[in-house]
């Protein structure tokens, strides 16, 4: 469901498939790994994510809080289709850096 890669500038987590109410444990592991990384911004690459629900949106908000506590910004990148529309409904553009 996720893969984390670190570069000099960004720490990138790539999500794929679905992010829903039964994925909290996996997502927490990813989030903690990402926030503990030392490099740059936290980027969530979403091009391979097909579906997100309200719980998934909540997970991203909680990641944002944990990152903020560590003085790290979170960017959401390449959301498509249903995921993009869920972000719009929830006004995520006002909460995250949303990148095409």
């Amino acid at each position, binding site marked *: 469901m996720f893969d984390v890669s670190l570069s000099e500038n960004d720490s990138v987590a790539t999500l794929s498939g679905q992010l*829903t*109410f*039964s994925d*909290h*444990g996996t*997502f*927490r592991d990813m*989030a*903690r790994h990402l926030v503990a990384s030392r490099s740059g911004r936290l980027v969530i690459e979403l091009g391979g994510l097909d*579906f997100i*629900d*309200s*719980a998934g*949106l*909540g*997970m991203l908000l*909680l*990641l944002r*809080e*944990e990152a903020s506590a560590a003085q790290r910004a979170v960017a959401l990148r390449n959301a498509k*289709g*249903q995921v993009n*529309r*869920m972000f719009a*409904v*929830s006004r995520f553009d006002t909460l995250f850096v949303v990148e095409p």
Partner: protein
Amino acid sequence: MPPTKRLRSVSRTGAPAIAPPDGPVPEDPTFETTMSTAQAYRGQPAKRFVADLAQRIALAGDLAERLETALHEAVANAIIHGNLGLSSPRQDDLDRCVAQEAVIARLLERPDLSRRTVTISARWTASEIELAVQDEGHGYSEPPETPAEQGRGLFIIRTIADHVATGDDGRRLAMRFAR
């Protein structure tokens, strides 16, 4: 839309149960499927139901996506708050969310709860589709009013459906969408 008086077809497996799209269109068409709470939690009932529905009627534009998104949220609420009887947790950190998921897993091991059913039904006219989700939980006497009490899921449903109604003391949620 008139109340459903009878069911033209019932599918408990999700298999096609009524005339294919090129067959005669039944009047007052409906489609329904019932599953256990455990099946609903572990499967992808919303995705499957909308795919089955799309075999029966045309879902233009982003309608299939909206139906699946709203139905997914309604089924999640039916499982967690309905049949498993969990109140909305304070989801203010990831550890608490993970703990909540562990509670759900333990409750699903109880046969009396995991066997409670979730029923998804659809009926439609030329101008609209109504999806309903029915659970077998205890319901509630007063529907939640504030956004925080409703939860993010119900907010999503109210945003993307054209009309939302609750019934059966909170055990039933009906969502209408213009076609």
